[in-house]
């Protein structure tokens, strides 16, 4: 009886590991899509509203989901407090912290942070072009991941289950 329980636990944990990996892949993709939507909103705020970056954060906070909503609100509030910190400092600190909690890779985080912090010149169009370039990179990454994720997810679940079975056989 104890053996049976042990084998089922091994089987379940190995399959769970595979499922967790697949879920992480889906979540990463989900957040990359969310970032792409945020960048799209940001570009329209810059292009049509000529909003400053703190204003953009305030407006984005009302249009995006958690945890981005809370992070944008915090950035806006910290800038409005007028403690004299630069936007880069505040944004990197707050948004970097929020992104660390998400199942993203370091390069995804950097890409998203760069989109907003892209300095450019005093020319609005040039700035939008720079952001668009970053967005293109993000879209390429999304497309690549979408192509890979289903296959990779299935493989992870399969490998997890097979790994569990193999362990059980060895232990038998």
């Amino acid at each position: 009886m104890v053996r049976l329980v042990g084998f089922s636990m091994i089987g379940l944990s190995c399959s769970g590991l595979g499922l967790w990996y697949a879920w992480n892949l889906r979540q990463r993709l989900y957040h990359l899509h969310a970032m792409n939507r945020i960048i799209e909103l940001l570009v329209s705020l810059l292009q049509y509203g000529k909003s400053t970056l703190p204003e953009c954060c305030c407006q984005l906070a009302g249009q995006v989901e958690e945890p981005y909503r809370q992070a944008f609100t915090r950035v806006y509030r910290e800038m409005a407090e007028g403690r004299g910190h630069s936007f880069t400092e505040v944004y990197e600190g707050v948004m970097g912290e929020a992104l660390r909690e998400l199942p993203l890779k370091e390069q995804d985080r950097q890409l998203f942070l760069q989109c907003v912090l892209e300095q450019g010149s005093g020319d609005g169009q040039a700035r939008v072009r720079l952001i668009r370039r970053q967005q293109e990179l993000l879209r390429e990454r999304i497309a690549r991941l979408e192509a890979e994720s289903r296959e990779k997810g299935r493989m992870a679940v399969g490998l997890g289950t097979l790994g569990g079975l193999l362990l059980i056989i060895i232990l038998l």
Partner: protein
Amino acid sequence: MNTSLTDIFPAAYRIYFKTAEGRARQVSEIRLRTSRPAILMEGSREVFLREDGAYTEHMDQAWRPDRQALSEIVSHLCQYSLYAYEDELRQGYITIEGGHRVGIVGQAVQESPGSIRTIKHISAINIRIAHQILGAATPVLPYIYRRGSMRNTLIVSPPGCGKTTMLRDLVRQISGGSAYGPARTVGVVDERSEIAGCYMGQPQNDLGPRSDVLDACPKALGMMMLLRSMSPAVLAVDELGSGEEIRAVRMAASCGVSLVATIHGMDMQDVQGKPGMGALLSEGIFSCLLVLRRDRQGRCRVGQVLHRRQIDGTWEEVAGDGPAGGI
């Protein structure tokens, strides 16, 4: 106004303005030039800023901001969003939170001959501190009302003599009502965000309970928009100048709206010599002129109040230096 003087600057540079912070009401201008002494103006008095934030009369002790410092300060002034101020930068200045105006010079990048795309390699800035002085217009109220109705008023002043301050308080007092006239709806076209000091669309200066502010909108266009949309009883505009603006003033006056406007100039003769203004004055569109000037001590005062006589269209001085009070 909600911002303090040091809030204008990034945290790293606030120390330089420590003394100025305590004397914010007196500070009228801060001039920062790359590798040259930082100068602060208190009225007509000029002092240098030391690195510890104290004032000094000695140029060799002054703080000299480097290129990096100036660039960081400009970034901060623009809320790290230089692109959002590109239209203003083309004109050589930006208006920041609190209604302060920042003049910027550097290397102009031309788009086409005669038109500037932007300014790069910024080499100097001049921060003109906006002050709201409540009651600044009180001494002139008896002159702008006639039996409860308002005279179309033109405030004439050389730069830095307080015409925007006077206009701002006039708007507040007209909008709130006074012993001389009832409260009226005032439409304010604030092209340079100096009158109301709007930040994210919200006026930061007190313009009274019945003021509608159209912020950052060209004056001529704004006057027409306000006339159509908000049906104001009084229209207020700062720094008239272009032909289009003068045409808009004429149209507003023909719609029966009262006007309060300002213009750069030393006196009435100077204003009459400006294109289009002579005709505007002779047509009687404005019937009250407030001339601001500095006295010998360098203080800004209402130097002259002139009324247009309806019978023969001539201008008579109803108050000279002194009796109309100062600002």
